[in-house]
């Protein structure tokens, strides 16, 4: 660890420092030769700073680059990552943290008003695996066992314990085999489809009130994103049909056969949260990210957190551009979860959640140096071994630098 205390020791300046101590003592200035403020996707360009810094205050990004006030810069603790690159932390769009049973009511198939936040355990062992994988935020989803599983939350891991960022964010549905393979209705895809249709129709046209119908009305009004577990062509068709009938854009969870409904997905404005990729998959699945991007469909990854970066690298190997792949790890899932103001970027006001890599993180040869969550080191080291000599701290932002290669 190399912390450079830049506070002066003279009496006069000590007085000044003491005056500013309540704020400045908590500030951390993190420097690196390259800082990616936000990755671009599609039309949006990446925002990258060369030889720059972030000022962290109260666990959030207070200032970035040239916006950092000189006095705050002087008062802050400095952590220098030398030649490494700082990027926004990864966002795992959907996970049950291995708690499928606790996040799905077995006896009743339609429970849209249950809250996953109530089953969240901040000391779960699975949370400890997230920071080493670069994951700084996650969507806590109901499991796929119920046709309507409940309201999902957004959480964050930490060095010691996790926490919830937002308790009620999206609604989880499922038409997958898991949802209809129970000892209760529905037992078929037709049954699941009918159950969804009847419930949404009741919420739209009926006069009944209740928490379950209220949740469905929020989905139809666009207040809450609706996540649907669906993989096969038939399941995807069913979900898109429901979305079209009740005028909302579903987010597909899984979607391994999305390439067969690309046009429909694009027309409906649906997003896709793909399962993490592995090299043994069918070629069609490995090429799916590139195909979705070409069709203008937003996608990101969910599944095993330790495979998140490999998934993006495999997508790049199979034709996806680096900028979109990086965005699929950060900005896109944050947007899909409706949390783009808090996570997925390193703009002022966002959580100080970032990863540090020596090299381009999409190349497996890049070394993962550290993960910071809420302004605290959650994994890795505080400084990189290679300290770069930089000419000046007030660097200017450079845009349209997507991969740094």
């Amino acid at each position, binding site marked *: 660890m190399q912390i450079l205390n830049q506070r002066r020791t003279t009496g006069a300046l000590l007085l000044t420092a003491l005056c500013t101590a309540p704020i400045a003592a908590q500030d951390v200035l993190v420097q690196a030769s390259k800082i990616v403020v936000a990755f671009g996707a599609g039309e949006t360009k990446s925002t990258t700073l060369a030889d720059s810094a972030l000022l962290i205050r109260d666990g959030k990004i207070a200032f970035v680059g040239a916006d950092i006030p000189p006095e705050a810069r002087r008062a802050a603790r400095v952590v220098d990552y030398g030649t490494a690159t700082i990027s926004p932390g990864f966002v795992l769009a959907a996970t049950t943290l291995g708690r499928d049973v606790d996040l799905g009511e077995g006896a009743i198939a339609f429970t849209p008003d249950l809250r996953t936040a109530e089953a969240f355990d901040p000391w779960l*062992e699975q949370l400890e*695996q997230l920071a*080493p994988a670069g994951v700084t935020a996650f969507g806590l989803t109901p499991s796929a066992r119920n046709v309507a599983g409940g309201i999902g939350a957004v959480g964050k891991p930490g060095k010691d314990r996790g926490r919830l960022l937002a308790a009620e964010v999206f609604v989880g549905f499922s038409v997958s085999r898991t949802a209809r393979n129970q000892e209760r209705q529905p037992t078929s895809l037709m049954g699941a489809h009918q159950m969804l249709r009847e419930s949404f129709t009741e919420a739209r046209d009926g006069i009944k009130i209740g928490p379950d119908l209220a949740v469905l009305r929020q989905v139809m009004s666009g207040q809450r994103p609706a996540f649907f577990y669906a993989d096969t062509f038939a399941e995807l068709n069913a979900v898109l049909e429901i979305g079209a009938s009740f005028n909302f854009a579903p987010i597909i969870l899984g979607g391994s056969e999305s390439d067969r409904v690309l046009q429909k997905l694009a027309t409906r404005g649906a997003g896709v949260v793909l399962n993490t990729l592995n*090299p043994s998959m069918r070629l069609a699945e490995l090429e799916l990210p590139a195909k979705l991007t070409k069709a203008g469909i937003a996608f990101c990854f969910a599944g095993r957190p330790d495979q998140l970066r490999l998934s993006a690298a495999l997508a790049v190997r199979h034709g996806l551009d680096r900028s979109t792949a990086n965005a699929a790890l950060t900005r896109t899932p944050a947007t899909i979860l409706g949390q783009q103001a808090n996570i997925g970027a390193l703009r002022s006001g966002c959580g100080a959640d970032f990863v540090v890599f020596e090299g*381009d993180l*999409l*190349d*497996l*040869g890049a070394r993962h140096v550290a993960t910071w969550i809420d302004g605290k080191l959650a994994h890795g080291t505080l400084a990189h071994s290679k300290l770069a000599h930089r000419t000046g701290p007030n660097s200017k932002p450079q845009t349209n630098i997507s991969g740094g290669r």
Partner: protein
Amino acid sequence: MHPVSGPPIKNGVVIIRGERIFAIGQQGDLQLPPNTKVLKFPDGHIYPGLIDASTDVFADAALRRDRSLNGGSVIADGLTWTDSRDDHLVEHGITTAYVNVRTGSQLPGQGAIVRPRSGGFELWEDKQQAAMQLRMTGGNGASHPLQRQAQLEAVSKLFDGLDKYIEDQEKYEKDLEKYEEDFKKYLEHHAKKNGKDKKDAKKPADKAGDAKKEEAKPGEAKPATGSPAGRRGRRGEGRPPRREPPKGGEPEELVPEELTPEAFEQLLATMMALTGKPAAAADVQGPQGRPSRTSPQGKPSATAKPGAKPAAAASKDTGPKRPTYPKKPREDLQKEALNKVLDGDLPLRIEAHRVDELRAALNLQREKEIPLVVLEQAYGADRVAEDIAEAGATVVLTDVLPFSLGAPGDTRNAYAKFDPTALPSKLNAAGVPFAIAGGTARLSAMLPMMAAAAVGRGLPEDAALRAITLTPAEILGIAKDTGSLTRNKFADVIVTNGPLFASDSRVLLVISKGRTEYEAK
């Protein structure tokens, strides 16, 4: 250009003539021979063809499941080109691969070295039986350590009886030689006794003797399965040369070609005439001492019975007795191969995953004095790296991708604790030669990404590149011909559009043995 055998060369040039590399160097330093076809890649990177030291490419599903394979099975015999996605290795820059299968049997055959082609493959000459596979692992299932240890120790029993097998083979050779001599004497004796037909009878016998002399010259011919130096003196000089068994498993016919059945019957008739007994009525035997199945007229003899004694009149003869043909010991291809392993003619590739399995493999190497041992899928090798280095073994690593063996913290998965991406760096530090391999045909395409993953965990880039080029060539015993961009090696060259370890690097050109096998469109 990254020659691997030396430092990278900026603006590098490789000159290919025929199948071989004629020269390498920097642009401007080399004089191009006249009429040279020039291929330019201004932004490209040139590497030697990649070598996958373990893959099941070209092995169809049936072969991959065949549990009947044993140490004598030759995998090369079962390889086929199916034109599936996994068969197009050459498009990923792989110009050489060692093919083996993991069927679950303890000795899943002898692997082969192949050259993937654009529409097929070519077996590497003299390397169709490149190594013997041995499985010394119980896999990922739960098992008691003591039970596993007992199973591992039982592996050494595979090597039991090899000395006896060799002794039996050698005894057979000697008996065969003695039989030939005795039979010659036997024929000569009776030919002499038959003064009238002496000339006719002696001629074939002499030729038989000549043929035998030409065939058996101790010390000159090398046995098919042994080395001249011999292991522990068993295969030293003086050992009679092995006779290759005839096809079909029948004992070799020792009657020289000149001694036709007609000549033999004539000889027999002469002998019978001397005893004063009609040949048709005698209990006669063939030239190998076996009962003759035909009468002199070519019809089955009613009196010819297996094991029947010679005619009483013949037994009264004071001359040499008719010799008995020696019994040939049962041929065992697995034992033949295991003997090659012990002699150092065939490397033994041991699949061992956990630390105790690796220790057992090293114990086996030490106890049996096995010269060439390659450890495969050695996930726990970092814990015994020093022992491996001391034993002189080499390692072929597979699954070198992040958490490819299981999610971290998964207590139900015994392999989740292994970190296959960190292993190369640790072995490199310990001085253990290792190759990074695909393991399966599907993962062979990921070879550069696997090497890159190792770089991400601390392995130097040059060592990672070596692990998929020159080191596997050394492990496979083909380093004099491939593995680096070196003059006179085969022209196995690939060109990529960026650094090989970048995720979006694409193969632009693949040349294998001087022939263009793939060119990106």
